[in-house]
């Protein structure tokens, strides 16, 4: 079995789902939430991310978002690119082709 790569030392952002809409959202620099990962606040590593996670969890308690968690990102590109494939799909929407999928990708990159 291949070992999962160690991701703790990568820069991190916080993601969650918005409670009322279900949208994938990211914690921003002003402690609000955006659907655009480009607006996310970036912590240099998991340790630094812990403080951000505390902010996010407080917002989960206030019923703004559900289940926030840290994800590793590559900040050498803009906007930051999630390292994990699953998170890239969450950030960008379904990768499928077709009319229905085009409809699925509409209406992104709007702050909530």
């Amino acid at each position: 079995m291949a070992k999962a790569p160690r991701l703790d030392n990568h820069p991190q952002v916080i993601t969650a789902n918005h409670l009322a809409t279900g949208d994938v959202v990211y914690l921003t620099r002003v402690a609000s939430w955006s659907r655009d990962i480009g607006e996310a606040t970036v912590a240099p590593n998991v340790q630094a991310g812990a403080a951000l996670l505390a902010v996010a969890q407080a917002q989960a308690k206030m019923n703004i978002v559900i289940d926030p968690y840290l994800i590793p990102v590559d900040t050498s590109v803009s906007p930051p690119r999630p390292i994990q494939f699953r998170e890239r799909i969450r950030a960008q929407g379904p990768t499928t082709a077709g009319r229905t999928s085009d409809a699925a990708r509409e209406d992104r990159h709007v702050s909530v």
Partner: protein
Amino acid sequence: MYQYDQLDQRIVEERVAQFSDQVKRRLSGELSEDEFKPLRLQNGLYLQLHAYMLRVAIPYGTLSSKQLRGLAQIACKYDRGWGHFTTRQNLQFNWIRLEQAPDALADLARVQMHAIQTSGNCIRNTTTDQFAGAAHDEIEDPRVWCEIIRQWSTFHPEFSFLPRKFKIAVTGSPNDRAAVRVHDIGLRMHRNDAGEVGFEVIVGGGLGRTPFIGKTIRDFLPKQDLLSYLEAILRVYNLFGRRDNMFKARIKILVHEIGIEAMREKVEAEFAAIRDSALRLPEETIAQIAAHFAPPPFEALPAGIAPEYAQAFRTDFDFGLWARRNTARHKQPGYAIVTISLKKEGEPPGDASAEQMQAIADIADRYSFGEIRVTHEQNLVLPHVKQADLPEVWRALKAYELATPNVGLASDIIACPGLDYCALANARSIPLAQQIARRFRNWERAHDIGELKIKISGCINACGHHHVGHIGILGVDKAGEEFYQLTLGGSADDSAALGDILGPALNQARTVDAIDTLVETYLQLRRGNERFLDTYRRVGLQPFKEAIYAAA
């Protein structure tokens, strides 16, 4: 078709009112996510990768045109203009907002629909043959029994918190189109030596992490005993099924661990105790339910092929191609069953736009007594079309890109939503299905290959039924990269079998080539009219394995 009575309607409306209140309390913070999650799941509302997903129950895959229009309207009003038909004969909306979910459920209730029994550890929506009431080989319409099971199982207090979910499938035909041997309980209608119709009861089938073909627990069950016997099985499962390990909680594990004989003994003992209880179905009740499924007013037409159909078949190549694959024999002379492929090249398997749903509802009204069915292979069916109308129906479908002539062929792929939508998936299914379909786009070749069931699951939960695909494909995550493990020789029909693992998993690019190589290997090996599955059963795994891995 079954029409709600006042009680059905009241139950569904009360449920909507309860859920509206629960959502309000969740949004205000009165309910925590932990408190709310089981409540939303009991109403079919999941949180998926990108958004909430609403799974709408389509009991035994039967829809009226009015209901399909209702679904189209919900797709436009609350979602992004489309829906996804699933291997459970249900419909999923992928982009529902929590704050609007109660309104969507209220709109569903207006067309006698709901999202109950589509999640949670209860008896789920019962599935059946999509050709029910129309198939030429049918003994009796299985929907009568599906509806009886629905009425018994909905909110059954004893079975609302089972060790795990529970799925029942029914076939009324010896040619199983409902995959009854891979369900928790499969019911197969047949005649005994005295000529009476009853059920073979199969228990402990299932796919997922630990697949099993179900075992026959009773060869013949009289119809009036159906609910007592189901209750006996469920009661034994509820008592003895494991609750300590979610992966070992399905009834298939219980049957496997204690053996079918011990299971039968326990069930029969329970059955003997409750057989003559209120669960015994009076003839009158059966007749009342059966009346809802009375055949539509068919015209008396001569047997044989209608001249209009024969003429179009001879003169229009494209129509002929479609008619060969997408129509099936009807029990009523002069009629045919039409399968509408939702597997157009370039579109995700099982997706239909609201516009297409509206069009199908209109076509059903005009040509099929307003009835539509959903298949577990993620297609739709017009069950009762006059043969003479087939050319017109084909043209009407074609106008909405719904006349892909590929039912049962290599591009008619079952694919779960996979990692593009599903929070549980390890790999994507839909893009792979789309690439494979493209590879088999040449109709001449596809029709030459003939019946080939390719089924793709994006994780071990096997929503894409990969274990029972002639070629099964399971997505796995290898250190962050998508790989696909192939199985061969699976089948979900009356000769049900689990596929054999071909070898080490392949990456996505190699997978598409490998499918092609498997098909070429079959074409070289086949004798006469053998299907892929027949050839595989004759020659076994080895030649296919060599074709894929020898060069590596």
